[in-house]
């Protein structure tokens, strides 16, 4: 294995693991704000208690998001120094802004939200929760702006020394790609949080423990889940897909496994990509749909991979194809499940319908898979470019960090994150099995907790 491939695996592994945490906390922050808002409006203390329970789960996930996030910012320099040197004048900007505008906000108000319920008024405590939500969503925005510039570079110019500089600050922040990707990504985050909340509710109902809270969690999880699942597909997924087709046509051909340019191109629901023979084995196609999705007409021509020079093909073609299909397939499942659940909720029958509570419970890991697969689609689709059309991935890694050193730290991260995963499971299991009822922090005389997660 050479340094380039190891640097890629290094980044891919650490960023994929990292994003398991923010994808929950960003969505959960929104749901906690909604819970606090309902409590504030109705005076129903159960919603405050529910928010307090989720705050504990939020805090541990937030912590793991923070400690696994620091390596991301460092890795641009450690493993991708040539990329950093050339593009720091552009993407250093949103990364620095994330620190200054999001992290200070988030960390300060999280401290107040977790520790300050006794010291703050109800409205101020709601305000703290709201600011945590704002901070985490701003943070996500700046990261997406960074990635969007790599996907679709705008508002830059090349300096004589071969490095890039921002030519328009607003042009960078208003990159249309960023806003589409942001909308699609934040929806995905709410999907994850909704499924986790609904699944926890389903677990309590099936377990016949904390059933009062089980019903609240299923209710809010299903409603938020249905809305976010719809928005995930339409309009955000639809618009994002069309942007990919427009600006990265080779990526869309790879995602769909389309080798030959076709009029009335099909969508293949399932099938195995054979990149040697350049075809899909055992395909289940629906004709014309791809042309329609991209161009709004069934007869439009979609360019196949064969019409692109070989050195512009996405380099991990089968993985790109499967990532995209897993994302899209799971998205469809989420919509079906949440629609059925919402109908039952509306009819008032969901809490006793074990046949729907079971799939809700078992589906909670799937949004993590779908979000990960979505990001893999975006980032593998961008290959062989590091910055689309400007810098190739093979030009970006650190020239003086040997493959052996990279493998050493990759193995270190694998070990470290294996331990973190075990600790996460132990602690979250304990929170969920204790449940919201048993929380001694309920009521006005709660003792002051020691740190972030001891709420």
């Amino acid at each position, binding site marked *: 294995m050479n340094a380039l491939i190891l640097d890629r695996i290094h980044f891919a592994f650490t960023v994929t693991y990292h994003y398991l945490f923010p994808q929950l906390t960003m969505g959960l922050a929104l749901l906690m704000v909604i819970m606090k808002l309902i409590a504030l409006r109705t005076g129903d203390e159960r919603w405050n208690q529910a928010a307090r329970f989720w705050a504990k789960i939020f805090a541990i996930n937030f912590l793991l998001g923070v400690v*696994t996030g620091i390596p991301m910012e460092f890795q641009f320099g450690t493993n991708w120094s040539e990329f950093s040197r050339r593009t720091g004048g552009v993407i250093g900007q949103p990364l620095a802004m994330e620190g200054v505008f999001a992290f200070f906000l988030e960390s300060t108000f999280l401290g107040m939200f977790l520790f300050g319920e006794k010291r703050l008024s109800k409205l101020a405590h709601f305000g703290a929760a709201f600011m945590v939500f704002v901070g985490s969503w701003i943070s996500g925005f700046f990261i997406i702006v960074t990635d969007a510039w790599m996907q679709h570079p705008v508002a830059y110019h090349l300096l004589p020394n071969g490095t890039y500089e921002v030519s328009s600050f607003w042009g960078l922040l208003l990159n249309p790609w960023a806003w589409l990707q942001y909308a699609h990504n934040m929806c995905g985050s709410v999907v994850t949080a909704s499924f986790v909340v609904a699944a926890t509710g389903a677990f309590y109902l099936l377990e016949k423990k904390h059933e009062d809270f089980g019903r609240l969690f299923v209710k809010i999880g299903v409603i938020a889940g249905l809305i976010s699942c719809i928005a995930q597909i339409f309009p955000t997924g639809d618009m994002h897909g069309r942007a990919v087709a427009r600006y990265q046509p080779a990526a869309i051909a790879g995602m769909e496994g389309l080798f030959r340019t076709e009029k009335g191109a099909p969508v293949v629901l399932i099938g195995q990509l054979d990149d040697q023979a350049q075809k899909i084995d055992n395909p289940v196609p629906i004709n014309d749909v791809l042309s329609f999705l991209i161009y709004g007409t069934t007869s439009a021509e979609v360019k196949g991979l064969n019409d692109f020079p070989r050195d512009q093909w996405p380099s991990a073609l089968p993985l790109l194809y499967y990532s995209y299909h897993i994302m899209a397939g799971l998205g469809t499942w989420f919509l079906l499940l949440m629609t059925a659940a919402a109908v039952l909720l509306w009819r008032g029958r969901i809490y006793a319908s074990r046949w729907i509570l079971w799939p809700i419970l078992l589906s909670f890991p799937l949004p993590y898979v779908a979000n990960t697969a979505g990001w893999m689609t975006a980032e593998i689709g961008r290959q062989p470019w590091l910055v689309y059309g400007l810098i190739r991935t093979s030009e970006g890694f650190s020239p003086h960090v040997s493959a052996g050193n990279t493998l050493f730290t990759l193995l270190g991260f694998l070990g470290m994150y294996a331990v973190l995963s075990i600790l996460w499971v132990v602690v979250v299991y304990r929170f969920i099995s204790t449940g919201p009822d048993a929380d001694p922090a309920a009521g006005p005389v709660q003792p002051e907790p020691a740190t972030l997660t001891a709420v």
Partner: protein
Amino acid sequence: MGFVWFWIVAVMIAAYVVLDGFDLGVGILSPFLARVEDERRMLIRSIGPVWDGNEVWLLAGGGTLYFAFPLLYASSFSGFYLPLMIVLWLLIMRGVSVELRMHIDHNVWRSFFDGMFFVASALLAIFFGAALANVIRGVPLGADSYFFLPLWTNWRVGPNPGILDWYTVIGGVVALVALATHGALWLVLKAPGELENRARRAASTLWVALLLVTLISLPATIAIRPSALDNYEAHRILYLIPALVVATLVGILSFTRQRKPLAAFLSSCFYLVFMLVGAAVGLYPALLPSSTSPARDITIANSLAGPHSLRVGLIWWSFGLILALVYIITSYWLFRGKVTAEAGYGH
């Protein structure tokens, strides 16, 4: 513009050292000061609501460095590859140990995280000190402005140094002692009763060590890097900075004796700031000097990002920092006063 951004990054690093410094110091002292479970909890509670925010200065400072001096960021982060990765692992271990210790009511679980908290805090202090010393000593920059340093070679300051040599080890020890002192003074301020007394005694003892290592570090720096004095000789008023280092050292001891904990803690803050400013003045305008030839130094001029980026950056940075200061001051004010031992906390 380069001058402004140099000091912006320097101020952010200084803010990180002063703020995260005291919670690292609390970690370094934790096994020596806290003897029973209640005291360990108080110790951690004294930094509970703020440690995460303190660490943000590292991230924000790193991001700003990346943005303003891309070449410096690229060269130093890839060149200090291994120690940076170790720092990352230590930051992970430390964050996890602070937050997870109370979640399971087993002595073994808690002791494990207490040990991790101590080890990670102490090693972080040493690594940060050694990192700064590496920057002062210089690194073997190649013609392409890159370098790669192993953790150690022969422990000598020569043409092929390691991250650790006798000089950078001194830097590590200075940081360890300085942050331990800083943490002790924070605890005098925040901890009640017996813990406060113990912290005060620790601060007085550590002060002697701090005086000693500070006095060793100054001639050592001049010995390995005579040009560190150039700016001082050019502008003699700058000799005020080492004088202020001495003044803050005196302040730490006398305010501690007079039972003025806030003044003593602030003296320690300024001690750290003046030590860093002193080093920055010695380096300026180099950011990462070359140990082989001054022509290869990474300087403000050759690593600065494009002018438009920097002009725009100055606007949002000022705006963002004012907001950040408002949050931070609010937070410290909200959690002001001494921490208390409360039975039955947890969940």
